[in-house]
């Protein structure tokens, strides 16, 4: 639901982007209507004044509108619940205003939840973007190894996140896990991984990176495929080396793709639940307690649903801000490329 309301303006822009047939058209100036367009739209406004209500169209789109309203209603109901002292199992519910929010803000755990949420998302997405870019470039090179790896690299993406979490929990066991065994072969470790508050957050970020880097790879690889060879050839003729071609031509052209993947991943990472819950449940202590995990505990383990709903609303606000900033960055990059 959070994603649904958030993505509306974003999807419109995405639609424009995706409908661009190829990259050369994407660099065409946008927002400059031709004279014919203006004449056509003027004609339309005349006809609109005469148009009668098209009931059939309204009936056809009614289900979609109702579903949308249903989503919005649920969302606002969730916001309302955050303003109550709703406790699962207790029949009496009182309106308490912003008491849940003020109570949360007085605790150090709440600020820790925000710190963990933001650190997790920022680190995971940055690492995924860098690795995804490197792997996509390898794939675009067309070497034999890349052709062999292409189908395999997508495997983490198709695994259910909870299975991924359980698999990594076993591998990261400080005593019997395979990671410490492999590191011991090169005289490293043993590490406590998810069992030590000093390394737990980094460990769950690494799991996220392993799982979702292929997503970046896929999107960036598609961007690289869209760059015609003429551009690279022109650069080569003008004496540009491979690194210069990459930084000055390829990277600016695929930057919108990276940011698009980034938007999706920022939204998901700020909401991440499965990987953290399946490995550390937010521990040790509160070292990996992201807002989504803490909200789950508060609502469904402690049964204080009103307080849990407040945490979810705060989580939603952070997702909204994160997605807004990413979309703005994408728009800026795209206009610069154009």
């Amino acid at each position, binding site marked *: 639901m959070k994603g649904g309301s958030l993505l509306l303006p974003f999807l419109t822009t995405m639609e424009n982007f995706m409908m661009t047939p190829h990259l050369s058209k994407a660099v065409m100036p946008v927002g400059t209507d031709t004279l014919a367009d203006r004449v056509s739209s003027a004609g339309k406004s005349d006809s609109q004044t005469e148009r009668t209500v098209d009931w059939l169209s309204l009936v056809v789109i009614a289900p979609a509108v109702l579903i949308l309203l249903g989503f919005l209603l649920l969302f606002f109901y969730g916001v309302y619940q955050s303003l109550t002292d709703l406790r*699962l*199992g*207790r*029949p*009496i519910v009182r309106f308490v205003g912003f008491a849940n929010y003020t*109570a949360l803000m007085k*605790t150090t755990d709440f600020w820790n939840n925000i710190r963990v949420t933001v650190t997790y998302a920022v680190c995971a997405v940055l690492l995924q973007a860098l690795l995804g870019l490197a792997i996509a470039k390898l794939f675009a090179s067309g070497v034999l190894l890349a052709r062999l790896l292409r189908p395999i690299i997508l495997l983490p993406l198709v695994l259910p996140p909870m299975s991924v979490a359980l698999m990594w*929990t076993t591998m990261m*066991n*400080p*005593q*019997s896990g395979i990671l410490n065994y492999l590191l011991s072969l090169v005289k490293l470790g043993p590490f*406590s991984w*998810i*069992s*030590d*508050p000093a390394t737990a957050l980094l460990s769950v970020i690494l799991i996220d990176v392993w799982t979702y880097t292929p997503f970046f790879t896929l999107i960036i690889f598609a961007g690289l495929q869209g760059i015609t060879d003429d551009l690279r050839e022109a650069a080569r003729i003008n004496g540009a080396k491979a690194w210069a071609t990459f930084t000055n031509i390829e990277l600016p052209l695929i930057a919108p793709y990276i940011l698009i993947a980034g938007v999706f991943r920022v939204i998901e990472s700020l909401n991440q639940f499965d990987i953290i819950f399946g*490995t*550390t*449940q*937010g*521990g*040790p*202590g*509160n070292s990996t307690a992201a807002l989504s995990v803490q909200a789950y*505990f508060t609502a*469904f*383990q*402690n*049964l*204080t649903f009103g307080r849990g709903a407040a945490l979810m609303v705060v989580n939603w606000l952070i997702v909204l801000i994160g997605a807004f900033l990413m979309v703005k960055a994408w728009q800026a990059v795209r206009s610069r490329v154009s």
Partner: protein
Amino acid sequence: MRNSMAAFRNDARRRMKSILLGSLLLTTTAAVTTSAEAETINWRQFEGTSITWAYDIHPYADALAAELPQFEKLTGIKVTPELYPDDSYWNKLTIQLTTKSPAWDVVGTGIQPAWDLAPGGLLEPLDQYLNDPKLTDAGYDYNDFFPSLRTALTWKVEDGQIATGEGGHVWAIPHAFENIQLFYRKDILDKYKIAVPATPPEMAKACETLKAADPSITPLGVRGVRFWSSIHTAAVSIARSYGVKDFVMKDDVLDTGLDSPESIAFHKDYVDMIKKCAAPSFANDNWYQVVDGISSGRTAMAIDSNMFGFWNDVAGKPASGKIAFAPPLHAPNAKNFESNIWIWSLAMNSASQKKGPAWLFIQWATSKQVALAGAVGGKLVNPPRASTWNDKAWLDYAAKPEFNNFVESFKTTQDRAALAFTPRVGFGEAMNAWAVAMQKMVNGDDVEATLKSLAEEIRAGM
């Protein structure tokens, strides 16, 4: 002569017929009488209905599921089991009951979750069914359940809070239970000549000896996850022997006792013991890891529910005969140990539309016969009925050599086993916070400061 012989044969035939008919009639009458005496209720009064029974995926559920055809044959009631993995089950249970869904008629629960469910009217009080002679068989004998179990599942709701004492309702019926014990690999302790520890400092010392002798062995398996379930086994049992109480009355006001001097003393010893004894993965260890460690021999000792030791001693298991039992650890200056209990029970959804059939199922599933069959089958352990513990079939089975001192240790522990938590709504919230604080202390946070902060958090939620 021939006629007289024929007449004699006819007469004898008639007499034989009469005797046979008479015997048959007597047999039938006796059978009917016996049946009527044993079955004071009409078990087929809800014939043709069907109910849903929801439960955790657990050996207790397996034991009941295996007997379901008998119940269906007896009553004509169809039972559909819905079994879920542990975490999913508790979440689904909360949601099903709080939304007043009638989909589940009978549910499995423990005492602690019931504290949060009963005040909202989500569970059906069962005394009205227990006291109804049309619904409860005269031979059911509710008082046969151990008194500590009956007491733990009986309370009233006053001003939205749990109130124990006289006049309470019965909210669930036990069908198996666990008391907390120390169980250990006899082969490992014997090999390194280590005596069974009785206090946390003794345990810490034993762990150091074991680690020095064989670094690959984890000396002690204990739950450490950040849920109250990791508190309810070793921590709260040992804490009680130090005089720690989760809640106390101060000037007629309920307060937490987790920042008391006794609590500080306990946590210092316990945290030191965990650091020296538990696996580095303590914070991620749940009962699965504890059981896996003891059954595989990677762990030498464990403090948890005693039946985990029993189940791994069953003939044919890799650890069969190697696990022995002792009461839980106690404070160095305490005269006695304490042991918490967890009761797997069957309760009725108050929103159920088939309460009569649901009660018949609960009654049958917790009857003497099913309790005994489940116990002798090696699954419904510990049996909650005193009669099972007096039954030769169960005692003969539990006294088999592979179970070592299971029966003696059970009897010793059960004498002192009781619910170690204060019954109250909001139990989970406070105890989850305790589990998180425990992780912080084990990871190096100052004990006193952490307990002070924990107590403030609990007070804020009261």
